[in-house]
């Protein structure tokens, strides 16, 4: 939120009169080579194209204690396909898939039952968690193609003091590329296992008058693997072999433009997913169940330095979410349609008037209009649920980053949130202390409070069918207190080591309780979690990178009477991640290796074995405007089962992908 940087970026044209050949070899390395061979006088004759200042970029790292940043070079060289692929490489995170969605586990807490509602997902600072279930999608339902991302910033720990609702365990911000990063068009195509095809067309430019714009469209189709669902085994079908119904069809559109103090961006994504069934009581085979999520967003922003010491930002936003679920239980078809749209306004002031202080103050208002939840059961059709609500939330936040001494910095922040869904107002303070003990040694201590409001779905959705769900409109927000201590150490030049220890206490956790066959959400008792996250990084001058993480995780339900199998069970005690990418043979070839080792997880029903998941990706850039890559995911075919249902949820195992991207 703080710190706006102006990057006057330009393109160069080499006006090398008489200096160089009229030029056939135009490969990247050679060109830089050319300026490498010039002396200063020759360099001064290189002609630049227009220079204009462009937009800021938001710096999440300045407000945080524990941040991992993954740049586009890693997205490309490791062959990441979705945000889920990125997150699995981040310390403290793991991904599970229940054949409907990807769900992120953070610090031992699996979010399958919460649709990732315990983390805030943003695109360029715009909230993506929608207004019905608060889901923060990490699969293709997130309305942006990962190829358009400049970098992903992952902040572990509470973020409610700035962002309010859902910034509970983590805040994830995806910063998109700009038009000037494209210099024209780009076409990309990919082909992968299970008849998976993906295509993308993008165009972006920066014009001489300063207008920077880009637009992109993506299509994705996959037949999906047929699975062996042990729960669905019958004498006729002893392995529970599913016949398709695991297909996925997605679309994503994105556009942005920047001109002077104004910026606009908007996107739309739609993901259709077939549900193979056999798990959670859903009928197995055809006719299949399915779900479809669509989300759209628009953001208009104005940002101006009112004086050299005062920055002003105002933005207006709009969002729309639509869900269509068709589930078959025991021959009955349950159709569930929900729709929401929201609009809002945010204003921020950032001041550096007082010496040694950076003050940020802001207000955010969001109105959610016509949150519709409809469900019917057929045959014969009977409407089980049909209601519509308007809700709003208002947040006011303040943060002061102080330099106490040359070596000691203090950050105080708090946000006050009022939401019409709950009688209670939320106060989320944060205190951070950064102490630079030695030149290479930094300690960070942080305490923060965060919250997650009950969703409209938890409060107002009632369906008497199979399974039955009843609303509970007396729910309160759940809250979390987190204390963390981080030690950052640089050594031997380019090595960076970070160790973070945390202790967290969750109060009034929103969990599902089942009584007499009816499921409803209730505020459960407390949970605690503690653990350590260790990260080691090194970057080499030739672009090679090593990033390795280990997490030790403990989580405990303090009120085990209400055991909620989806949250506190299935905690992997150990989580190890290794990522290494490097140029191979020549700068044209680059390789990426990533590995995640997850310890076994135990729940009331069963124990899920641990796995070692290995990814390999090879990138070849024969010329500067063409990228070719080939990747294998889960090379060892070891990540075959995720917890859930009676006998676990089958995963796809080893898959591959071939991809090209060309620019013109």
């Amino acid at each position: 939120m703080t710190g706006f940087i102006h990057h006057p970026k330009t393109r160069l044209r080499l006006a090398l009169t008489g200096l160089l050949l009229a030029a056939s070899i135009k490969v990247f390395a050679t060109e830089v080579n050319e300026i490498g061979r010039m002396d200063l006088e020759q360099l001064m004759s290189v002609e630049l194209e227009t220079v204009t200042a462009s937009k800021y970029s938001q710096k999440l790292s300045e407000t945080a204690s524990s941040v991992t940043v993954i740049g586009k070079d890693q997205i490309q060289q490791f062959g990441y396909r979705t945000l889920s692929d990125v997150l699995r490489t981040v310390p403290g995170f793991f991904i599970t898939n229940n054949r409907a969605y990807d769900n992120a586990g953070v610090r031992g807490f699996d979010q399958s039952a919460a649709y990732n509602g315990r983390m805030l997902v943003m695109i360029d600072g715009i909230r993506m968690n929608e207004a019905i279930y608060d889901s923060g999608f990490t699969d293709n339902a997130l309305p942006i193609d990962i190829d358009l991302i400049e970098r992903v910033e992952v902040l572990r720990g509470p973020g409610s003091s700035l962002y309010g609702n859902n910034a509970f365990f983590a805040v994830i911000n995806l910063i998109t590329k700009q038009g000037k990063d494209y210099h024209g068009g780009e076409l990309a195509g990919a082909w992968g296992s299970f008849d998976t095809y993906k295509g993308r067309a993008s165009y972006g430019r920066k014009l001489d008058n300063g207008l920077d714009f880009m637009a992109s469209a993506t299509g994705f189709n996959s037949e999906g693997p047929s699975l062996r669902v042990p729960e669905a085994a019958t004498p006729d079908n002893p392995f529970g072999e599913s016949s398709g119904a695991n297909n996925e069809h997605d679309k994503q559109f994105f556009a942005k433009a920047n001109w002077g103090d104004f910026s606009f961006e908007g996107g739309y994504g739609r993901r259709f997913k077939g549900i193979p069934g056999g798990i959670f009581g859903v009928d197995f085979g055809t006719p299949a169940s399915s779900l479809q999520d669509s989300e759209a967003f628009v953001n208009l922003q104005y940002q101006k330095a009112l004086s050299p010491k005062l920055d002003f930002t105002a933005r207006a936003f709009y969002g729309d979410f639509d869900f269509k679920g068709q589930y078959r239980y025991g021959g009955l078809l349950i159709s569930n349609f929900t729709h929401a749209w929201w609009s809002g306004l945010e204003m921020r002031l950032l001041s550096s008037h007082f010496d040694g202080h950076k003050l940020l103050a802001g207000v955010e208002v969001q109105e959610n209009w016509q949150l519709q939840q409809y469900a019917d059961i057929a045959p014969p059709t009977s409407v089980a649920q049909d209601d519509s609500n308007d809700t709003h939330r208002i947040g006011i936040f303040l943060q002061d980053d102080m330099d106490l001494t040359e070596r000691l910095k203090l950050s105080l922040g708090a946000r006050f949130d009022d939401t019409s869904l709950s009688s209670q107002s939320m106060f989320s303070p944060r205190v951070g202390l950064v102490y630079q003990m030695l030149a290479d040694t930094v300690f960070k201590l942080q305490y923060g409070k965060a919250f997650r409001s009950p969703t409209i779905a938890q409060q107002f959705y009632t369906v008497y069918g199979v399974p039955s769900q009843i609303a509970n409109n007396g729910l309160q927000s759940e809250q979390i207190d987190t204390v963390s201590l981080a030690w950052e150490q640089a050594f031997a030049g380019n090595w960076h080591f970070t160790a973070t220890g945390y202790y967290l206490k969750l109060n009034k956790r929103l969990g599902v309780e089942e009584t007499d066959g009816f499921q409803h959400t209730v505020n459960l008792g407390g949970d605690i979690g503690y653990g350590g996250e260790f990260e080691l990084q090194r970057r080499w001058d030739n672009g090679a990178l090593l990033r390795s993480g280990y997490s030790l995780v403990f989580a405990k339900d303090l009120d085990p009477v209400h055991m909620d199998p989806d949250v506190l069970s299935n905690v992997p005690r150990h989580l190890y991640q290794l990522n290494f990418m490097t140029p191979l043979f020549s700068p044209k070839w680059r390789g990426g290796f990533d590995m995640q080792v997850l310890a076994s997880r135990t729940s009331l029903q069963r124990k899920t074995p641990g796995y070692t998941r290995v990814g390999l990706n090879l990138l070849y850039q024969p010329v500067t405007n063409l990228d070719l890559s080939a990747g294998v995911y889960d090379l060892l075919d070891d990540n075959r089962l995720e917890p859930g249902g009676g006998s676990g949820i089958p995963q796809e195992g080893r898959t591959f992908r071939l991809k090209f991207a060309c620019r013109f």
Partner: protein
Amino acid sequence: MTCVSMLKKIAALGLLLALTVNAGFADSVTEYDLKAAYLLNFAGYVEWPGSPKPVTICVYGDNPFKAATISTLLAAKTGQIDAAFKYPLHSTQLTDCNIVYLAQSEQDRFDKAIALLRNAPVLIITDIQDGLPEGAMINLITESNRLRFEINISTVLAAKLKISSKLLKLAKIVP
């Protein structure tokens, strides 16, 4: 669309043979590739007390340079300029550097870094279009579509650095 035809060519030749394919056109080097070349070249025009080998060039703040560019430039200058790039995290590490480039992300915090380096034999370089910040020695600016640089000689002299007259001839001198 040249790259589509290229794809075809490559399919025909096989990936490994594609090395010979002629692109026809390519991305130009970026502004920051050029700035990196300047940083490296400055190392050849300045003398430090104790003649450090290699000359340590530190990039402080959000690194705008591509790692591939840096390694290519260093390779191209092998035998002429002995330098190494470093990326310190904290301002207190800057005193170990011979050249410090303060990235634009640090614009709000220049004073602090510069105060820390006051009179130390460190060449402080910035790229602020609106003029050389106080305490900085060289500022990279754009003028009539060329990259130029300003030098503040008094701060250079105060830091006990010797600057070659050739560099001064190329520079815009700021009093």
